[in-house]
């Protein structure tokens, strides 16, 4: 089946079998292996990508369902060699150790803070409950998110001006 979508600003056309999830399609057919596949049944959040502006679990979505969608994966977060404020905050605050859950965490936070730059700490904690981390612990992740939040607020303000 022919499926077309835009991923990180690039138009792609793929031919996934019906049973292929978007996560596997991105990794195996589009060769974007930054999206990680953890539990494959929608619990861990490692495979989170942004579809049409909203964070979604790419293991709970068929590649076929992404036809016509605009997708952002972790590879699309920084457009050049420079890290974004979100990535810098994770680096500075030790928001990752093994890094397996990190792409999903960053995609979740990028979607959240883009839509809700003034999200409270409670809201951030609530949203992050959909992403499991088994080594870093959540405190440095939340500290990173809170630090990066200011940059999203600046962006929102300059977009308004």
């Amino acid at each position, binding site marked *: 089946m022919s499926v077309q979508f835009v991923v990180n600003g690039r138009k792609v056309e793929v031919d996934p079998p*019906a*049973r292929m999830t978007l996560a596997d399609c991105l990794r195996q057919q589009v060769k974007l292996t930054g999206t990680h596949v953890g539990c494959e049944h929608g619990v861990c959040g490692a495979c989170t990508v942004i579809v049409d502006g909203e964070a979604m679990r790419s293991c709970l979505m068929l590649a076929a369902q992404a036809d016509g969608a605009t997708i952002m994966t972790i590879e699309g977060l920084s457009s050049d060699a420079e890290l974004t404020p979100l990535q810098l905050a994770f680096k500075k605050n030790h928001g990752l150790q093994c890094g397996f859950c990190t792409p999903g965490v960053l995609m979740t936070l990028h979607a*959240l803070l883009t839509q809700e730059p003034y999200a409270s700490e409670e809201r951030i904690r609530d*949203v992050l*409950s*959909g992403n499991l981390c088994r080594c870093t612990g959540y405190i440095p992740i939340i500290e990173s998110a809170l630090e990066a939040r200011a940059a999203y607020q600046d962006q929102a303000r300059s977009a308004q001006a």
Partner: protein
Amino acid sequence: MKLPDFDYHSPTSLDEAITLMATPNARVLAGGQSLLPIMAFRLAAPSALVDLRKIKGLDKIEITQDAIHLGPMVRWRDVERHEGLAAALPLLTQAMEHVAHYQIRNRGTVGGSLAHADPAAEFPGIAVTCDARIHLAGANGKRVVAAGDLFVGPLETCLQDGEIITSIELPRWPQARRWAFEEFSQRRGDFALAGIALFYDLDGERRAQNVHIGVIGATDRPRRLPGAEAALNGQALSDEVIAKACAAACAEVDPPTDIHGSAEYRRSLVGTLLQRALVKASS
């Protein structure tokens, strides 16, 4: 695990979807947030998935004078964002805050939740408590089922092979109605170990009338608690009356024991949650 193989269809009209659903062992794909996991676990292996995403109008929220109509493809996110719903049916929006995680809420649908029929899910519980009417369409025509009759057991509904949920109709509320929703889960976004949804109206002498109490998570399907309702109907809500209703609720549930909690614990939890809900609703 990877999903078992199936044929994928994305029809653009309901008629076309109904025709495709005649395939033996075909299943409707709405948001896929429950169906795809149970397929990954091989608890379901449909021959075909009929995706409703291209059929226009199925994601509409309509509030009329008498009822709220939710299309089956309305997502939790849509319920959360809708401006009129919280005022029209506050119990619904309050309960929906407990549904799943952020990413799931962006895809999961109300129709999918009903068809999946998880006994611990919030929306089926609200549908049963609020006397929702479920509109169905299939090869043999259309019919309407009361939410209380829709659920037969865990992950089991009275939907016939090939039938599709086309709309969920929830009656509108009088402004002064008292209501509350309480649930307990071990982590945020997890399924409830037990939950209580309730509402009642006060008569001229401040006695509870028209008491509706629904329970989730502690029974094999969402259901009302007629014993507890009877203990409250026509009564002013004193501590003594509330205690009686809670005792009746504990006696009329038959909870399962699993790794998350024993039957005794869940039974006791039902009483505690009902007590909290009644205190909240009456204050």
